[in-house]
Structure formats: structure tokens, C-alpha cells
């Protein structure tokens, strides 16, 4: 019954490696997001897709590449991992209303990435 799920929950890897985080939502929403939460718990938007189209692309290193194979899935691939990439990454989803709002966002449980 999980609405927004992420895998893996924990990811420990060496600097320089490439890794992916997967997200799936079963809410039927048309918009999905990636947020990064740093060690001070600050939450910042990274990317957003609406029906597989990229609509938000914040100032994020191009080592980070989102991919949305369909509107229920949004994956995050990270190349050449750096120490500073260590954080908790949250996926979220929302549904655009007939009025155009995409307000209520549902978050996944997070993926804690540790780069050694």
C-alpha cells in the first residue's frame, strides 16, 4: 500500500562510483520530484517531471541525471560520486488539478546516501 516508494533505503559507496536511486508512486499522480536533504535537514528541490517531461531543473551538478520512464517512475542517476553528495534524497509526487495547481506533495521514505 506504499504510496511513494524508494529503493534502496540506504546506499553506501566509494567516491567516484556511479549509483542510481529508484522511485515509484502508485497514487496515479502526474508530477514527480527529487529533493535533497542535507545534514542540517535543509530540503531543496532538485528536479521535477510532469508526464515524463522535465519541468524543474535546479542548479544541480550535471553528474545528477533524472530519468522518468513513465509517469509512475522517476529515477536518479549520479555519476562520479563525491563526498558532498552524502545526503538523504527524497522522491515526492503530486497531481496537477484542473486549476493547474500541484500543491499537495507526497514524499517517499528517503534514500540515505553515504559517500566514503
Amino acid at each position: 500500500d506504499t504510496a511513494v516508494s524508494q529503493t534502496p533505503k540506504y546506499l553506501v559507496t566509494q567516491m567516484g562510483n556511479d549509483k542510481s536511486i529508484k522511485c515509484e508512486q502508485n497514487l496515479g499522480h502526474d508530477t514527480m520530484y527529487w529533493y535533497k536533504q542535507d545534514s542540517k535537514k535543509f530540503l531543496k528541490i532538485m528536479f521535477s517531471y510532469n508526464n515524463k517531461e522535465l519541468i524543474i531543473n535546479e542548479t544541480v551538478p550535471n553528474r545528477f541525471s533524472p530519468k522518468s520512464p513513465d509517469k509512475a517512475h522517476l529515477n536518479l542517476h549520479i555519476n562520479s560520486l563525491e563526498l558532498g553528495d552524502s545526503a538523504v534524497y527524497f522522491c515526492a509526487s503530486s497531481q496537477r488539478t484542473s486549476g493547474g495547481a500541484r500543491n499537495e506533495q507526497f514524499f517517499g521514505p528517503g534514500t540515505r546516501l553515504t559517500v566514503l
Partner: protein
Amino acid sequence: QQQVKQSPQSLIVQKGGIPIINCAYENTAFDYFPWYQQFPGKGPALLIAIRPDVSEKKEGRFTISFNKSAKQFSLHIMDSQPGDSATYFCAASISGNTGKLIFGQGTTLQVKP
């Protein structure tokens, strides 16, 4: 102009107390102001939200007060309980846009029994 400033950073109250968390914003185009609650090891969950056409919204023990002219809004938790201990985030966004949420810095609340 895209910032949302939240205070205090941390808060400790006794059970039954009324913790108040404050947020301020600059961008007058923001028209949706949610509060999220996050427990350790979990994702943020929407608690309550308000639009600028009302000055107050109450859901159970949680109340948002909104001051449009001052560009401030606050969360009050009535009769706080130890189970309310969590991190609270205010946020703001522009409806009809991408849904991008700008979050405050977060407030860690501890409610002592």
C-alpha cells in the same frame, strides 16, 4: 526573494504547552503555504496548509495563522504531546506553476512528558 525563513531552529516545551513556529517570506507571488512534519528516518508529511485569502486555518490541534501584509505565517500546536516531537518545515509555492516548494530551514520540536 525565493527564500522562506523559519524560526526557531529548535524548541522544547512541556506536554500541554503551545509551541509556535514562525516563517517569513519575501516573494508576494507565493500563494500556497504548507507545513510538513517529519519524524526521524521518515519522509516529510503534509500537516496543514493555507492560502493567503484566509488569516487562520485550524485542523485538530494544529493552527496556521497567516499575516499577508507582514508576509509571515506561523504554526501553533495546541495541547502538545510527546508524539508531536518531530521536525517541522514551513514551505511556500506558487500555485499553477511547477509545484516547486521552497522550504524553511526546519524546526526540531521536543515535547517533554
